[in-house]
Each structure stands twice: as C-alpha cells, then as structure tokens.
C-alpha cells in the first residue's frame, strides 16, 4: 500500500493537489480572514473561467496541438455574451455556436492539411480579437441575468466556486479518462498511427477535440461575463498563457496525450491563488511582478524534487 502511495506516478499525480494545499495553507496563515465562506468565494470565483479555459487548452494539448487563440476566443465569447446574447438571444446563440463550429473546422483544417496548429491558432487569435473589436468597439455591455445569477449563487456550506470546480473536474475526468471513446481520443495523442491503423478516423478525433475546446472556451467566456458583468475585447488576452501554464502545472504534457482534467482545474486554481498570496505578502511594487514568477518557480520546483527522488531509486 505504501509502495503504491509513494510510487513516483502517484506522487506526481497528487502533486498538483499538494502544492495547492500548501499554497492555501500559506494564505490562511497570512490572512486568516480568507478562511471563511466569503473569503474562499472571493478568492476563487475568478478561477472558474480560467479553469474552463485550461480544460479547453487541455483538449487541444491532448492531441499534440497547441491553441494560441484561446484567450482571444474567450474575449470574443465575452463580447457576444455581453451584447448579442442580451439584446438578441437567437443571434447571440448563433454566434456562440458558430464559434464552436469554427473550432471544429480548425481541427479539420489542421488535420487535413497537416498544418502546425501554433500558426493557425496564432492567425485565429487575430481573427477573434478583430471580430470582438467589431462587436464591441469599446468596453461595455451587460451580463445576461441568468449567468449573473448562476455565478453569484450562494450555495449552502460550500462556496459555489469550489462546487463548480469540482463538477468541471469530475465531468471532464469521467468523459475523457473513464469512457471508452475517451481512451481513443487520448490514444490519438499517444500514437496517432496506432489509432489510425485500428480503423479510427483521426479527422473525426481532431474535430471532436477542437470542438470540445471551443465548447469549454465558450463556457469560460460566459462565466467570465457573469463575474465581470461587462465585456471588453481584450478581457481574456492573458488566458492563452494562463491556460497553458495551468495545464502544465496540473501535470499535462505537450506531446504524447498525457493529460489530467483534475490536474488542469487544480493548476488553474493554483495560478489564481498565487496572485492572492502575493497581494497578501505586500511586496514592494517593483517586485510584485517578479514575485509571480518566483511563485511559479517554487511550485514547479516541488515537481523536480519528486523527479529527483524517482531517479535515485
């Protein structure tokens, strides 16, 4: 039993959770006020859209691609949600579905023409940003009432962000890690040729994974608007890097189809909390930016320790 628990694979799998717990403990210690329903709610609610975007990125990572447009796409969704979805719901819904369709189409294009996804999504990031600026030339708009209501939900005992994060992690975990077709999807990242030789359509797999990325990106944008209550074309520009960092922190890898939905959600939350931790530390403004980097390094250094231990065996 202890051997299983101390096996590097297990350690690595629980590492994201451990670093999150450590960070949380440090925050509670620095600022006991955060150890409350409201405290957790305030600290964690902005992690929800990031977690959703990280999941979206994870789907793309799973098939050995990278999405550099997720931030701009979330911005596009945010602009649509804050404008059309309120003023003209059918148009808004059509625009959101079109977003998913475009993502699916990108998957097909990348597969059929064997294109580097980095370039294609880099191009798409300009397209999404442009469309967002066209829809909302200056920040504004309002959140649809029901999204606002959902994001402000006061659940009993456990704060809503924690419930939401758990639900996201569990749903995606079951869908991708436990279902039969999920293993085919992951297998396509591990050895596409093997999947192809077994008679599965790689085209369909790419399309499905990109469409899922589009879907979760859409959810991220809508959740974000529920929190901020108004839109802005540049609102999520940072999500591209955050989602990649979150996925990696959560134990996903760039190639080989090794991903972890729960890890991705935890990674996203860790990144968000790192920000809180910093503002509780009260460092000189000059070094506040640098401290973000230091925290990232610290969290990842833990992983190095475990890998070291593994090598020593």
């Amino acid at each position: 039993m202890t051997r299983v628990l101390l096996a590097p694979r297990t350690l690595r799998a629980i590492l994201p959770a451990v670093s999150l717990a450590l960070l949380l403990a440090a925050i509670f210690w620095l600022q006991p006020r955060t150890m409350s329903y409201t405290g957790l709610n305030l600290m964690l609610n902005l992690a929800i859209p990031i977690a959703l975007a990280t999941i979206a990125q994870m789907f793309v990572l799973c098939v050995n691609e990278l999405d550099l447009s997720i931030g701009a796409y979330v911005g596009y969704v945010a602009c649509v949600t804050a404008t059309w979805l309120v003023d003209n719901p059918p148009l808004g819904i059509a625009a959101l579905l079109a977003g998913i369709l475009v993502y699916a189409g990108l998957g097909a294009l990348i597969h059929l023409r064997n294109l580097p996804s980095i370039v294609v999504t880099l191009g798409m990031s300009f397209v999404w940003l442009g469309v967002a600026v066209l829809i909302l030339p200056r920040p504004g708009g309002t959140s649809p009432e029901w999204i606002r209501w959902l994001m402000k939900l006061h659940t009993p005992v456990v704060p809503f962000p924690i419930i939401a994060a758990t639900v996201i992690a569990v749903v995606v975990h079951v869908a991708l890690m436990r279902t039969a077709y999920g293993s085919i999807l992951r297998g396509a990242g591990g050895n596409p040729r093997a999947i192809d030789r077994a008679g599965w359509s790689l085209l369909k797999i790419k399309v499905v994974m990109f469409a899922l990325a589009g879907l979760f990106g859409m959810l991220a944008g809508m959740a974000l608007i529920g929190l901020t209550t108004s839109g802005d074309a540049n609102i999520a520009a940072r999500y591209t890097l955050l989602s990649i960092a979150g996925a990696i922190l959560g134990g996903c890898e760039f190639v080989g189809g090794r991903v972890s939905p729960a890890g991705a959600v935890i990674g996203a939350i860790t990144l968000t909390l790192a920000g809180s931790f910093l503002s509780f530390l009260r460092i000189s403004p000059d070094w506040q930016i640098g401290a973000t980097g230091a925290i990232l390094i610290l969290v990842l250094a833990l992983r190095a320790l475990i890998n070291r231990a593994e090598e020593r065996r």
Partner: protein
Amino acid sequence: MTSPIVELDGVARSFGAVQALAGVDLAVDAGTCLGLVGHNGAGKSTLMQVLAGTLAPDRGRIGVAGEDLTRGYDVVTAQRHGIRCVFQELSLCPNLTVAENARVLHPSIRGRAWRRRAGELVGAVLDQIFPRHGIAADAVVGDLSIARRQMVEIARAFSVTDVPVRLVILDEPTSSLDALVAEQLLAFVRRFVAEGGSTILISHLLGEILETADRVVVMRDGLVVESRPAGDFSRESLVAAMGSVAEAASDRAAGFVSRRQGEPACRARPVGQGAGEGPELLAHPGEVVGLAGLAGHGQTDMLVALFEELGPRRSALVAGDRQTDGIFPLWSIAANISVGSLRDMVRGLLIERGAETELADEWRRRIGIRTPDMKDNILSLSGGNQQKALFARALGSTARIVLMDDPMRGVDVGTKQEVYAIIRAEAAKGRTFVWYTTEMDELAHCDHVYVFRDGRITAELAADALTEEKVLHASFADEAA
C-alpha cells in the same frame, strides 16, 4: 481444401523511385501458418501493410474468402473479415493502459465496466500465450519494457470480441522477445493453427520459420521467388533462396585464444550490483564481450551507464529500440550515419561537405544498405536497413569501444553474416565490443560472456566454456537457494 482465406494477385506498390512490390501473388489457406522470409527491404512489411488495409496498392487484386474486396479495401474492411496485424513497428498507444489499448481494437467493448471487460479479454489471451507474463491490465504501456509491449500487442491481435479472428499477421514478432518467450509464442501459433486459424509469420530467424510454418514463401526485391511446403526447405536452401550464402556455424571454442591480458579497455558493474558483489564486467582491447540473460534483466541499463561513463569520444552505441533510441526521423540516411562521426569531419570550424557523403557511401558499400540514394529520408528504409544505418553510425566512428544493445533485431541472415564478419575484423584491429544479445547463436561470436539476472551478473563464461545449458542455468533464479 476450401478456397484460401486471403488471396493477393499481382499486387504492386512503389514509393517514389523504389518499387517495393513488383506484382506479388500470395494465398493463405485456412488452418496454416505461412512463413514469409526475405532480405531486408524485400517488401515483406509493405505486402503485409497492403493486406492489413493500411496501405493502398498501386495495382493488384485483394480477395478475402473468395470475395473480391479490392475496391475501397481498408483497415475496417480487413478487420471486419477477421484479419489482424502485429506491425513491425509497435502500434500501441504508450499513454494508455493495457486494457485501454485492447479497447482501441475492439469498438464493441463499450458501456458499463468496459475497462474491466477489456482488461479481462486481453489478460486471458496473455495468460494463454505467455503464462506468467506479469503484465497488469491497468499498467500504462509506456512503462512496460519493449518485450512486454510486444507481448501485449500480440495478445491484443489474437483477442476476439464480435468478429472471429481468421488471419493474424505477425511481422517480426519475436525480434524483441527473448528465446523463452519467443518459444511460448511459436507454440501458441501452432495451437492456433491447429484450431483452424491462419497466421503469416515474418522472421529473420530461419529456425523459427522452419519449425513453425507449414508453408514458406520467399521474397526478393519485391517479388515472390519461391513458395513451397516448409518440409522442402533446409536452412541452407532457404538462405540460398533468399539470395545469400549460408555460413557454417562458427566453432569458436576450438581455436579460442583469450585476449585477456594487460589493462582492460573498460570495467564496470551493473547499476544494481554493489561493489564486491558478484563478478565485475571487464572488456579488453580486441575482445568481443557478450551480455546474455533474459530480456530486461539490466543489460540495456548497463550499456547505457557504460556509454555515459565512457563518453562519446571513447565509445559508440548501437541502439536496439531504433524508434525511440536510434533514428533521427527527419534526416537523410547519410546524416543519420554521420552524426556519430561529426567530430572527425570538422575542418576548422565547419563540417566538411564531402566527408559526410564519403562516409555514407563507404558504409552503404560495406554493410549493403538498400536504397537508391543515401540522401533519401531514413524512414524510406525498411526496418532492417534502418538498423544497418545504426550499425554504420557506430562502426564508422572512431570510438574504440562499441556497445551494442541487441542490435540484430530485424536484420536478415545475409546481413547478419556480413556484420559478424565486420565485427570480427574490427575486433582484430583492436576495437572492443560489448554486445547484448537475446539470440543464443550470437553468443558463439563472443570471446567472453556475462549472464544477467535481476540486474546482476550471475555468471561469467569464456568462449571455450560456453554452453547453452550454462547460460540458461544462470539466467533463471536458483529454485533451491
């Protein structure tokens, strides 16, 4: 007899200037094991890919159980007709578990508890073919040794859900297995055939073919040149049919002279073996040192450790797992060879232009790499020819110590003889070879053999004291102790 279960008629396929298949006819009857042999690059794997539906032929007809399926023949059609293939290069997803990999081949396993059912399915076949295999259904494939991965893939190919398995193609299935496991597989193939199934077995170990196959088909340069019952062939006639000359088994023991004098070229202990425990590995200049034992008992680790300790100036390594440890897939054959000798090709600051082509051409000649142009991509070579390029890389360097990690995987008989000769010639010039092999025959080419078990050296045998029995004895745990 009923009509053959598969029939290929005039199948041809070219890759650019290379005509891999030049009109091949082949028929496999139900309840037979068909042995397929031929030199490296003869077109065996290409033919099997056509049959498995993963490669479309340029022309030719494909018939299955009397039905003409040429139009739109693909993997799904092949599988629907019970044709399965274990490819030469592994086709498992390393990030999935054994059970999940089984499911990849069986879309019908779905719904509740699919994982358990998939695991049981492949587990049962594994138990049947390789008793005491020690592979858990929830093990991640990437964590398994290459031999175990091969076992999983073989078991997967024989597992049945909705479509009965009629024909299983085994493309060099034993190349990464040790003798014992290979024997288990071949025994299973016999049983499978006896029960009415069919297999096509490709191997460069002619003994295996002669023992297992009912019928042997010989390919040469993209054509079938001979097809006769196995009983009609002897080892010699088979080798001759492939276009090589068989060599009398060497008897090293007779005139053996030990080269163990003076300072050894290198000395080392296995990673898991403490100082003072068991024998130390010594290799003297001009010596060919063999590492024996079952696959995965620490031989590869030892070689890698030795390589890291000696450094690239003194040693060169011939990888066995060429996909992950050997080739550079984007480079030409020439670049793949010269990468081992870059230091020697530098004039001033730059790599000399001609030197690379020169080296490549020299080794194409010496080791017979079959390609129209050494500037072609390495992946355009057949598996065995890729392996030859890896040999050329190590032998072409100036390293005095050559470490070889079961390097003859997938190399044809003729080439093997050539390589053995090269090794002997190089050793005579004072080079040292440390050679891990899973084939007993090859140990006969060594001056000194170390047997491994559980990451330790359990026996050390000089060539004049080497017997198969002693090696086997040292390879298995002492039950009594």
